[in-house]
């Protein structure tokens, strides 16, 4: 009895929070909503007496993946209050597609001979281990390769974006930027001695990164010409 009530309640909450995830216009709200959804899923697992899976669900998905997504949102600028629509522009088409999949799934579940409630004690965590390291040991070992690939890939990508330039060269960059500004001003003065404003491309201040000295430490071209 309590199981049925609990399941109904949790299912309703699950659907509601899932809807919130896709309808929220703020990415951080969306991610936190996803955390709620995943927690409720964990409760459903617990209801099915799969305590281990429930714990893993919270540890990995709520504590891990949601954290990862929080970081994913925070490294972008999409979280600073601007409205983001995460749902599709065409709602009718989406409703039809989603509804179709739902009906298909519901029909196949009704047709199958899955028990409507858990029967007998749930398979223990221990049996999970003997399954993993017994018949499925090859898949298990392949998984480690997958995780390795993920770690290496993440490091390579993150390094390319971030780890290359130390901040200590600020001094060099600032000097180059000022020198570039000065050269630009001199050139603008030489090219356009008339009081009319210079051409728009010439008046545009140069960006600091364009004036960076090359890695071998040679003097930038503008500086040499001045």
């Amino acid at each position: 009895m309590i199981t049925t009530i609990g399941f109904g309640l949790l299912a309703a909450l699950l659907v509601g929070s899932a809807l919130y995830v896709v309808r929220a216009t703020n990415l951080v709200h969306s991610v936190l909503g996803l955390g709620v959804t995943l927690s409720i899923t964990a409760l459903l697992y617990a209801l099915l007496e799969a305590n281990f899976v429930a714990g893993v669900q919270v540890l990995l998905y709520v504590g891990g993946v949601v954290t990862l997504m929080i970081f994913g949102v925070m490294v972008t600028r999409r979280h600073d209050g601007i409205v983001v629509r995460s749902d599709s522009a065409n709602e009718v088409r989406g409703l039809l597609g989603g509804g179709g999949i739902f009906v298909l799934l519901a029909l196949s579940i009704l047709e199958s001979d899955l028990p409507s409630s858990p029967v007998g004690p749930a398979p223990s965590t221990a049996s999970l281990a003997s399954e993993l390291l017994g018949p499925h040991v090859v898949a298990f070992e392949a998984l480690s390769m997958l995780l390795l690939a993920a770690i290496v890939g993440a490091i390579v990508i993150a390094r390319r974006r971030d780890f290359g330039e130390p901040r200590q060269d600020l001094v060099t960059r600032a000097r180059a930027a000022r020198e570039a500004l000065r050269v630009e001003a001199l050139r603008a003065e030489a090219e356009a001695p008339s009081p009319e404003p210079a051409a728009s491309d010439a008046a545009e201040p140069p960006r600091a990164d364009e004036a960076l000295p090359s890695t071998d430490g040679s003097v930038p071209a503008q500086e040499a010409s001045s």
Partner: protein
Amino acid sequence: MTESYAALGFLLGAFLMAGGMLAGAALLRVRATKKSPLKDTTYECGEEPVGAAWMQFHARYYLVALVFVLFDVEAVFLFPWAIEVHELGRAGLIAIVSFVAVLMLGWAYGVRKDALRWE
């Protein structure tokens, strides 16, 4: 079965206590008689906050989280084995050692490339 219900009940009890403290404070607390927009601004050492606090963070935060998730996955796979070590015996140990060794290769790569440094 019953134990997970007990854990849930515990969670409810904890929630009730903490929520009760918050609700009790909501009843007891002093209310400002006058609205003060200055009081509702965020604190930035007495200066007017410039720009949004919701700024962009470095991708290396993401990297740390990603590596964490991967190691977490590893740990979760270790747990079923951990409670069955004596049953699974030497074969299980070899399988796990090779599993962990491959992952630690990734760790060694990260340390070597200095990717797990913060700054």
